């Protein structure tokens, strides 16, 4: 990579735009008892803030540092295991 040019390049890092979780107005809350482990929330999350825990008590973990509260996970969940609740 050339050092002299001013190039529109970046290296991918976690949270390049800062902690976008502060933007959140509604918080997705997960209920493991309703979860059927279909992974749709993980697949649809536009910011990759949902991690899968294979064999864990909670099948998913939501990263609230970066979750913007868009509600897509709640919307796609077939068993309503994720509900949106107003932030404090």
């Amino acid at each position: 990579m050339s050092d002299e040019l001013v190039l529109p390049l970046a290296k991918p890092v976690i949270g390049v735009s800062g902690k976008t979780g502060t933007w959140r107005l509604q918080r997705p809350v997960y209920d493991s008892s309703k979860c059927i482990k279909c992974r749709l929330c993980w697949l649809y999350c536009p910011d990759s803030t949902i991690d899968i825990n294979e064999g864990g008590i909670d099948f998913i973990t939501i990263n609230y540092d970066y979750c913007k509260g868009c509600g897509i996970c709640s919307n796609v969940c077939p068993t309503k295991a994720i509900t949106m609740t107003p932030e404090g």
Partner: protein
Amino acid sequence: MTLKTLTGNYAVATAVKLARVNVISAYPITPQTTIVEKLAEMVESGELKAGMIRVESEHSALAAVYGAASGGARVFTATSSHGLLYMHEMLWWVAGSRIPVVMAVVTRTIGPPWNIWTDHSDVMDQRDTGWLITFAENNQETLDETIKLFRITEDERVFLPGIVTLDAFILSHTTEPVDVPDQSLVDAFLPPRKQPYIFRAGEPIIMGNIPRDLKWNMMMREDIDKAMERAKKVIEETDLLWGRLVGRRYGGLTECYRCEDAKHFIIGVGAWVGDMREAVDYLREKFGLKIGLIKIRYFRPFPKEDMIKWLNNAVSAIVFDRSVSPGAGGPIFIEVLASLASAGVRIPVKGVVAGLAGVDVTPEDVANAVLTSVSEVEELGTFKQSISWFYGGE
């Protein structure tokens, strides 16, 4: 060294083959089509080992080679007129990401009304994109400049894409004798491809993400401007080097024809520079007029310094534009004026808008327009009109 009879479009295809491109994308539009048709034949026969991508639009044509070039390939595509305008957004992406790409633009009028003949409206519309833009006068220059453009665009001082421009039919479909250099000679001239970065699997980088500080965005634009300035020297060096190898030099950004003692100047670009040469010869021989011709070979970067050098002691200059920015004048006229003004050179300059839509302008037409204008200057010390529309003929 082999003399072949080639159309302008086949001269481009031959040059692209000699440059050993890796990937070509093709979408047909008159009068460009025979360039990519010829390249398709070369790929099919095995004469050229390159990937050929048939795409669904001109926007995709440039996007496809942009992707390949980002991955390290030497690439080529070609278009004209409405196709070029449809591609316009992608021109910004390619230049903005500093990826060298070479494209041929066979200039063709923009509709409406529907028209296939040459004028320069299509390529002038790409003026601000950050692409180098060169105009060829004949098929030999078309071939030479296409090969050179690969070297210039891939020079680390430049790293910008470039357009080689040839006039519809006058060059694209007209056969001329063209000296085709040997492959070994082109191989010696053209080093392996260089570019500022390469997208590789397993080495993720992001191109074009929103910068945290908008000043970076502006700095990238300034960097393109600086690269254009540096390109001026690279273009001159490349002309010298190519000249040593093949014995043909064209000058750097401009060529000045019969300028030694000239007081009045014609300025033009593209194929009709040939007609202008004849007009200059005629005016000198028949009328003893001390007239010279400035051929603009590169419109981007614009040869500001050359304009000042050639016109510093001139009595007058007449700029022929084959396109117009309605409400402002011909783009070359505007930039010649700006160049002269930046150095405090104050001479009468006239902008002649002519040859739009393929309206033919002959050497006689040029000579007559010049005679009228020069007599105005000699009588009044200036031109009656700074901009005029000239239709040629009777």
